[in-house]
């Protein structure tokens, strides 16, 4: 068994706003082992980014409240002091953000920003040592002419190179867990392919674990080992990659899989669409949160089902009342992507 790095138990995150309390994350459980890539998928507002940010204590704010536990090697991140948290961030858990344009400081040289990061976490290292390490990192993430590029400003880098620099920064302190929030969304497909390949290689080289947040099922199909599907702040399905893709249990997962125009299949006449829009997280629907948009909802859905194992495969959980046989019969149409 690989070492357990992270255990999230019944995590709730909510924010008080002028309009009311937003239940961004409502009861999320998962674990992460060394060497594992966990993909969290869902649409805007499903709580995937808030979950990711909370792993680093980045959602702490005066209007935020938390419940549950985020155990990193047994220590609860939610209950660490700000000072203790600083040691965890970067050293133990590092984050790669979606938009490399806004997450690098435009007025400092790229190399300087990495050096600063290294020295902040390791005050004993000299400037020269830190710079050598920064150069090494830039080479490792595939920046061409790293010796010259290290003294460039972010605007002199292309989008793909900026994302590489962000990854270099994330890796600077050899973290155990890399949290990547939509790391390829702002990039073109050809650059996306480069970055995915890079993350996959570095995960092995650094013997770390990755939490990959994305809305793109194509990306998780390529890199993830385990998948969480989130909807309106809840996990609606969780399981090993192949189980979720080939034996999906939740109608929302079917909807997601069925609504993508795919290159590997014949073109359908009409795309299958999920009707309606995700609910407000201030007043989420009672019962199953997907029920108002679910074509298969029935009377039982007024009560929300628990996230539990209903299929033979261990570790494959879902949150749907439909009997398993019924689901397997119902979903075929949805998954083929051809709308009725």
């Amino acid at each position: 068994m690989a070492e357990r790095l992270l255990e999230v138990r019944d995590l709730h995150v909510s924010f008080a706003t002028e309009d009311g309390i937003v239940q961004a994350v409502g009861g999320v459980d998962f674990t992460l082992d060394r060497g594992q890539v966990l993909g969290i998928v869902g649409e805007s507002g499903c709580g995937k980014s808030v979950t990711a940010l909370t792993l680093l204590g980045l959602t702490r704010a005066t209007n935020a409240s938390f419940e549950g536990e985020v155990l990193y090697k047994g220590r609860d991140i939610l209950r660490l002091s700000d000072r203790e948290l600083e040691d965890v961030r970067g050293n133990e858990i590092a984050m790669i953000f979606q938009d490399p344009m806004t997450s690098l400081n435009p007025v400092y040289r790229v190399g300087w920003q990495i050096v600063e990061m290294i020295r902040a976490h390791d005050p004993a290292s000299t400037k020269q040592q830190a710079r050598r390490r920064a150069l090494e990192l830039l080479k490792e993430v595939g920046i061409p002419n790293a010796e010259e590029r290290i003294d460039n400003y972010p605007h002199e880098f292309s989008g793909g190179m900026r994302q590489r620099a962000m990854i270099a920064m994330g890796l600077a302190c050899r973290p155990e867990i890399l949290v990547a929030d939509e790391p390829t969304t702002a990039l073109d497909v050809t650059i996306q392919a480069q970055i995915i390949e890079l993350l996959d290689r570095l995960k092995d080289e650094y013997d770390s674990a990755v939490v990959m947040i994305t809305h793109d099922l194509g990306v998780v199909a390529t890199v993830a080992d385990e998948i969480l599907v989130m909807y309106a702040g809840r996990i609606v399905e969780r399981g090993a990659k192949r189980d979720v893709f080939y034996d999906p249990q939740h109608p929302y997962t079917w909807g997601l899989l069925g609504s993508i125009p795919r290159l590997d299949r014949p073109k359908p006449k009409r795309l299958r669409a999920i009707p309606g829009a995700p609910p407000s997280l201030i007043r989420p629907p009672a019962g199953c949160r997907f029920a108002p948009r679910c074509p298969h909802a029935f009377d039982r859905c007024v009560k929300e089902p628990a996230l539990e194992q209903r299929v033979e495969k261990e570790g494959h959980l879902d949150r749907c009342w439909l009997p398993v046989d019924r689901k397997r019969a119902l979903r075929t149409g949805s998954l083929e992507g051809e709308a009725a």
Partner: protein
Amino acid sequence: MSASVNGDGAALVEVENLRKYFPIKKGVLQRETARVHAVDDVSFAVREGETLGLVGESGCGKTTLGRTIVRLLEPTSGRILFRGEDISKLGQRKLRPLFREMQMVFQDPYASLNPRKRVGTIVGDPLAIHSIGDKRDRKRRVQELLETVGLSPEHYNRFPHEFSGGQRQRIGIARALALRPKLVVADEPVSALDVSIQSQMLNLLNDLQDEFALTYIFVAHDLGVVRHVSDRVAVMYLGKLVELSPAEELYDRPIMPYTEALLSAVPVPDPDVAERRERIVLEGDVPSPINPPRGCRFHPRCRYATDVCAEIEPPLVDYGGGHLAACHHPLNVDAETLRHVHVAAESPKEADDHALPQDSAGESHPVPRAES
């Protein structure tokens, strides 16, 4: 311009040797020091009733091309024909009646609607500007339009911020349709939307095309989306049109190596397929359009490139069936086909028409890839 074999409708829009350069000015005198070659000698035709997909990576010029066609940008040179009439040099006054026929749907549903105007005004403004009907007529028409795009007539008095991204995009579509245009240029209309909403929008655009007999130019970077909506697809790279083909044909049998790489880079939502598939990972980034590479613009990143690619710009060659591509080393083409190809009328002026990929001479090019 030669109409292609599988074309049915007459050409609605023809673009001939279109160029759009943006000057880069420096110094107190604002002297032009360089130019961004955003669209560089592009020719093609869009037929009435079809959807032409325009794909490529950021900075390839696809958006600029779309905007220049509807004359939101001034072309640097070349011609744009709308129903056979040259509109590339028309002034604002003469353009106005034309805007009734050509409309645009923008990418960002948050930035493209005025937050201080009500939905009724946003959608009704084109009617008011063109003085169509009286106030009551216009209100009725706007309410009809809102229903057509899947909103409710009661939304007439609401403000944009009361709507979700998908609903806002519907408002943008209603506005574009208000004048019953012939041509709609949709610039990344679904890329800001979540997948479940994206498929609703693609179905809506499809229905509207049937209902209003629309012709679409659909600009997008998502090859899955483009395949779904398009009859034909044009691939751009660094300002050049590098491949143009009926949609299915392009996806089954790409000729230009760039298209092949682009297709192979799209992540497939199927773990087994993703594992089996050969992914061509292109090295490096798209070069700067200020100083584009000589010869074939793709050659510095191309795995098939040889000396000729760095020197001579390949012409757009017609491979039959309306499939055009610009490449010295075409893929998926057999020797027999190569003997019958010719330079397409759409080929750029600067390309060397004698640099046809020929097989008979026994030269190093072309190297047709064995069909798998």
